[in-house]
């Protein structure tokens, strides 16, 4: 359908055309319906039309039109009514009263149905069908008949039996609404004529059913009154019932209303000239009998059809909902499971079966599922789930599974206990989600972060290479001089071996000093994942300063170091912590490049706070943080240095976070800035957890 801007005038013209067409159609339909009714009357002297189809025409027209337009159909049918009634010679006053009554029926019924039922599908639920029956077949005909009975009174005068007249009007409208109404409403409300969408099999079945019904009804209603054994009559009347029921059950309301219509038409046809079991004495009684039979049959059948439809729709809705859930679950790689402790039954969606590598016929049991969990993860997984469900919380746990084909996948399981329980849940249900891709991505991210951290360390050490070389030169120089001195001492006449021993001791300690520097360097240059162990922050501070010794002297920076005595250890990766200290110190040093040498000072301090936290701070007397710096110092790629990458603080911040602390930067009151971070002290629990 193309979306075009339609000129308002064009649209109005199209609408007008449509309205005009409907107007004419309604009028014609009404007229034809009236003629059909008269025709039945002319065809037989045994009966007359048991219902008045034009009412149903008007009712349908009203139900299909918006309320504010109801005057149109009413206006359309008036001429049709007048012409038709005039054609059979009905006097005008009667004709008018009849018209008024007909309109009254249609308008009241339509209004009430609109309010109570709303709109199509008119017989979608049992409740709607009941309302239709009550409104269109019982209440409205009863009320309208009160007025309609006056038509007879008008024509026949005082001899007319009001009660009988009322009954005639009532039954006529009731029958019309039950036999013609449903079919008409369903047909006219159908949004598309979906005959082609029905499977051929069903079409054939419906066709056969129709034919069978016609045949049976024809036979049944033909049977001569009293000719054969009259005891069979009740049984005979029941013959069409199985077919009608079949129609209702198989095809819902459509089938029910169709079958009822077929029975009605066949019955009328057969009754036109008899013999028929319904034909008794006078035509009124015969018609009355027909009406009673058909109404009695149609009401329960229609309700049955509506009930069947309702159930089918509900089932359909559930199926669709399940399908949607399955599709959604599969799309997110989620599978659902359910375990009942009492019956030991484990339910797993097909997707879950695939996930866990169950063969198509294989039974899923709790044991089978648990045995697929990776042996290393099994114990912790089971314990975690049990602990959480026992505590009434949603349990979330990630573990590996090993499929029968050997493939290992990472699974995330969420589960919760269902319903009330005391201590041990009776049912537990949850989801499995395949997170292997995510885990792989996480691992890759972690690896990249590691690479980056390593690269930063290497680049920092590159900057310091001169200073580091110097740090090694000193001990080497001392060692050489000591060794040469010892050599000379040994060539003396009476060598003082005690002094030589002292010299050798000094050599050893100088070597250790160099070794320490190399050790630290090696650690910093190594690219490995963080390994948590007990770390001494005082030690790290001192050795970091040693690494920077030469650089500090070159830049004429004075340092002051305030270390807390007996500082407790923390749990961390010494390499990464030293990286942070290096980064903070280098930043502090760079901050003072513009300052006069006499004002360049760095203070490193360690402090034990409230017995539990260790605070480390690096304070400089440099230019301090700018406005931008205060907000974005930790952002990646933010730098104030000419050749800076801007990653140092960002990395340092994430390293400290990893260690359970937080890195903060603040301007000092007297110029410069201080970087501070706090870490929890190492305690017995952490030791147990890390080394278990």
């Amino acid at each position, binding site marked *: 359908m193309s979306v075009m801007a339609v000129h308002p005038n064009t649209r109005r013209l199209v609408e007008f055309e449509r309205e005009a067409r409907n107007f004419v159609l309604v009028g014609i339909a009404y007229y034809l319906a009236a003629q059909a009714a008269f025709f039945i009357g002319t065809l037989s002297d045994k009966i007359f039309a048991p219902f008045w189809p034009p009412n149903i025409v008007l009712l349908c027209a009203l139900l299909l039109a918006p309320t504010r337009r109801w005057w149109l159909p009413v206006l359309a049918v008036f001429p049709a009514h007048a012409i038709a009634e005039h054609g059979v010679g009905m006097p005008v006053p009667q004709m008018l009263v009849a018209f008024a009554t007909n309109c009254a029926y249609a308008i009241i019924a339509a209004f009430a149905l609109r309010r109570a039922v709303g709109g199509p599908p008119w017989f979608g639920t049992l409740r709607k069908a009941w309302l239709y029956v009550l409104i269109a077949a019982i209440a409205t005909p009863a009320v309208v008949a009160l007025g309609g009975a006056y038509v007879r009174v008008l024509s026949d005068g005082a001899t007319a039996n009001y009660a009988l007249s009322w009954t005639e009007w009532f039954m006529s409208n009731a029958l019309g609404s039950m036999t013609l109404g449903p079919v008409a409403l369903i047909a006219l409300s159908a949004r598309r004529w979906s005959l082609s969408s029905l499977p051929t099999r069903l079409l054939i079945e419906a066709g056969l059913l129709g034919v069978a019904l016609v045949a049976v009804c024809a036979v049944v209603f033909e049977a001569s009154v009293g000719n054969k054994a009259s005891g069979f009559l009740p049984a005979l009347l029941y013959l069409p019932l199985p077919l009608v029921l079949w129609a209702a059950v198989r095809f819902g309301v459509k089938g029910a209303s169709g079958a009822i219509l077929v029975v009605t038409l066949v019955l009328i046809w057969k009754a036109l000239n008899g013999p028929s079991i319904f034909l008794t004495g006078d035509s009124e009684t015969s018609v009355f009998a027909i009406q009673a039979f058909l109404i009695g049959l149609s009401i329960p059948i229609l309700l049955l059809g509506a009930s069947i439809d309702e159930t089918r729709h509900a089932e359909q809705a559930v199926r669709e909902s399940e399908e949607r859930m399955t599709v959604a679950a599969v799309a997110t790689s989620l599978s659902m499971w359910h375990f009942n402790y009492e019956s030991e039954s484990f339910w797993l969606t097909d997707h879950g079966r695939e996930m866990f590598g169950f063969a198509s016929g294989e039974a899923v049991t709790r044991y089978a599922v648990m045995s697929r969990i990776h042996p290393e993860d099994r114990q912790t997984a089971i314990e975690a789930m049990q602990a959480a469900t026992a505590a009434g919380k949603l349990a979330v746990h990630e573990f590996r599974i090993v499929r029968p084909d050997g493939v290992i996948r990472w699974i995330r399981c969420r589960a919760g206990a269902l319903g009330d329980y005391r201590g041990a849940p009776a049912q537990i249900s949850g989801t499995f989600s395949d997170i292997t891709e995510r885990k792989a991505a996480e691992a890759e991210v972690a690896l990249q972060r590691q690479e980056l951290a390593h690269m930063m360390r290497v680049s920092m050490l590159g900057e310091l290479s001169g200073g580091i070389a*110097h740090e090694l030169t000193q001990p*080497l120089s001392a060692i050489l*001089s000591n060794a040469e001195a010892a050599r000379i001492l040994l060539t003396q006449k009476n060598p003082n071996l005690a002094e030589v021993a002292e010299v050798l001791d000094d050599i050893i300690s*100088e070597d250790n000093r160099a070794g320490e520097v190399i050790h630290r360097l090696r650690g910093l240059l190594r690219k490995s994942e963080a390994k948590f162990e007990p770390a001494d922050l005082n030690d790290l501070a001192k050795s970091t300063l040693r690494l920077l010794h030469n650089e500090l*002297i070159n830049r004429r920076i004075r340092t002051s170091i305030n270390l807390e005595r007996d500082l407790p250890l923390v749990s961390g990766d010494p390499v990464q912590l030293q990286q942070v200290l290096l980064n903070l110190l280098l930043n502090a040093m760079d901050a003072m490049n513009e300052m006069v040498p006499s004002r360049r000072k760095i203070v490193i301090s360690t402090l034990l706070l409230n017995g539990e936290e260790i605070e480390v701070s690096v304070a400089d007397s440099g230019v301090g943080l700018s406005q931008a710096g205060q907000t974005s110092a930790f952002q990646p790629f933010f730098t104030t240095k000419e050749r800076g990458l801007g990653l140092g603080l960002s990395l340092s911040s994430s390293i400290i976070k990893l260690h359970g602390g937080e890195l903060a930067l603040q301007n000092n009151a007297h110029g410069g800035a201080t970087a501070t971070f706090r870490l929890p002290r190492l305690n017995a629990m952490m030791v147990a957890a890390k080394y278990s």
Partner: protein
Amino acid sequence: MRFTTFLVDDDPGVLKALSRLIRTAGYESRGYLSPQDFLRDHDPDVPGCAILDLTMPDIDGLELQQKLSEDSIERPIIFLTGNADIPASVRAMKAGAVDFLTKPVKREDLLTAIARAEERDAQVRQNRSELQTIENKLAQLTPREREVLGHVIDGKLNKQIAAALGTVEKTVKVHRGRMMAKLGIRSVAELVRLAGRAGIAAQH
């Protein structure tokens, strides 16, 4: 007094080792962890040389060299550094250092430099003492004799000197004789050399 090496290095290990090494060569050695300590203790009369590290906090080796020269202290300096820095070494040599060595330093290199420093130190001392002697002798001259000295190194004849001083040649000869005797020299050439040493310039 024995020749003493004054070691200034902020690294205690290096200080100790160097001290030891130097002592095995028979020299006296004193170590200071900072230039301030060295300056506080320093006695210019003690023969010796200074062995300075370049990179030290507060005052580095070059600045110390400058300070010594500002205070007119003549102390031969050997630089010993872990960073081989060409501009620094050029500056050091231009400012009069004896040598510029890099760590780790070999014994023979160090001792060679110390020997050169010792020579220079001895030289300096000798010069100084000679100068002192000359000045002592000069101090003994009377003002008149001083004047005559000035004219003699000018190359003036006695006659001219007499005219300049407003006295007779004979008086001049007497002054001249006494002056030469006090100074302990016998020829004018020696006088000129001595005057040159003492920094007495020609008058005209």
